[in-house]
């Protein structure tokens, strides 16, 4: 990367002061399948639409929610391959953190580290920004649950609840009405599933969505389809 022919950045300012490549990257995100997250008192939940283009696709090999550290996980909206690169890099970087400091990387550190990588790709020679927005669910060093969003520009935001991808505006409105400060993780999971169902095309089943949770004092886990089915049954 950074060949002599492309030692200049491809993301350059427009006359009006915008970085168009980042704007376009955000468009790619807005075209991606919906992902949302809710931060409750005692944990965080992230969920995403995993609707596959055809019944022939083997859903077992599609994974959108990934564990990064024992205490944090990612979800995304946008370009899948870009996501895989970031997941691999962030996992490795967390192990370096573990090696250096002797403890699991807290979610805030993970977010700033990942965000600075994403920012690098808006300023380095010969590369384009990542076409994804990330939702990061995890626990901080004192065990407190937190939810973050990281954008292609490298900016990150802490959220109580948020949505990205298609229909994110209506999803966020839905969440705004339902999020409360004393919400518990179980309620949050139900609310997340309801919100996802709002904008879902067709029938939502345990096999065309993915849900990841991390409980306070617990570990990040991606729910199995049978666990999701239990929540869906309760919601009905």
């Amino acid at each position, binding site marked *: *990367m*950074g060949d002599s022919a492309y030692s200049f950045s491809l993301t350059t300012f427009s006359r009006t002061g915008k970085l168009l490549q980042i704007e376009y990257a955000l468009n790619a995100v807005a075209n991606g399948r919906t992902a949302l997250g809710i931060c409750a008192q005692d944990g965080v939940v992230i969920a995403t639409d995993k609707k596959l283009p055809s019944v022939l696709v083997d859903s077992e090999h599609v*994974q959108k929610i*990934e*564990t*990064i550290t024992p205490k944090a996980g990612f979800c995304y909206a946008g370009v899948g391959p870009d996501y895989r690169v970031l997941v*691999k890099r962030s*996992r*490795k970087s967390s*192990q370096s953190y*573990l*090696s250096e400091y002797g403890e699991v990387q807290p979610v805030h550190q993970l977010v700033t580290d990942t965000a600075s990588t994403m920012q*690098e790709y808006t300023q*380095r020679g010969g590369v384009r920004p990542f076409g994804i927005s990330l939702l990061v669910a995890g626990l901080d060093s004192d065990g407190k649950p937190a939810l973050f969003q990281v954008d292609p520009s490298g900016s990150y935001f802490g959220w109580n609840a948020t949505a990205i991808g298609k229909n994110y505006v209506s999803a966020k409105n839905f969440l705004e009405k339902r999020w409360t400060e004393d919400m518990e993780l179980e309620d949050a999971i139900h609310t997340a599933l309801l919100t996802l169902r709002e904008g879902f095309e067709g029938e939502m089943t345990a096999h065309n969505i993915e849900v990841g949770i991390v409980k306070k004092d617990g570990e990040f886990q991606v729910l199995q389809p049978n666990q999701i089915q239990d929540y869906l049954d309760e919601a009905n």
Partner: protein
Amino acid sequence: MTAGSQMNANNLHEPAAGFDFSNYLRNQNLLQTDGAAPKLKAKKTGTTIVGTVYAGGVVLGADTRATNDTEVAERNCEKIHYIAPNMYCCGAGTAADTENTTALISRQLELLRMDTARPSRLVTAVTLLKRMLFRYQGHVSAALVLGGCDLQGPHIYQIYPHGSTAKLPYTSMGSGSLAAMAVLESSWQENMTEDMAVQLVQRAIGAGIFNDLGSGSNCDICIIKTDGTVDYRRNAVKPNELAPLRAQVQRSGRLNMRPGLTPIIKSEFKPHPVVAAGGETAMEVE
């Protein structure tokens, strides 16, 4: 592993991964020069470590003495290191080498577990360890007994500092390995129960503790079962307790005198004279 540091995208030096051997040639030269710097010595652990397979998993055992030549550097150190949820590793040799090597491979295995979404296998750990140790040509002084249970069953491996490995039903390593092996050879049997295996390991480590000067203090035990549970018994046996010995020491009653035993005849208080500001200070900062 890359040698030396590299410039990253922001033109900042990034530290090289792994061990840095850039001083090796310098050290060799120092040793050859007459009357030069004292011979550099690595801190070694004399040790007794043992591992055995039994009917329901594996049992690992280790003593807890860390030595610096003839001095006991630590009386109760931990020699059974975590590698993966289903694997632990006993380490003999240089303490820093065993700890850092096992930690490095442990992190690599965690990355692999996340990538493959599968539990780690012992052959993976053995391969990663032996490849690394061979690359360092024995300079990383880590002699390991690796034990655990994976989808293929319970396994014990021994790994030497130069990178050779052996898969065995039972083994011992460290300066106390002969004493421990004597016990193992006389009593080991196939398909032992958990209690039999633990007793055997405790006796083997005990042989090392009492007959080898490089080993001593307590015995740590780690049982890893084929169902995935781990029973880490830190200080499972403590045959060398100091407290009863200390209690026997006769200490003079004059060490515990209550305040007020010495009568005060006269008392006088003079505040210390204050030196005027601007006087000479002992240390000039600028």
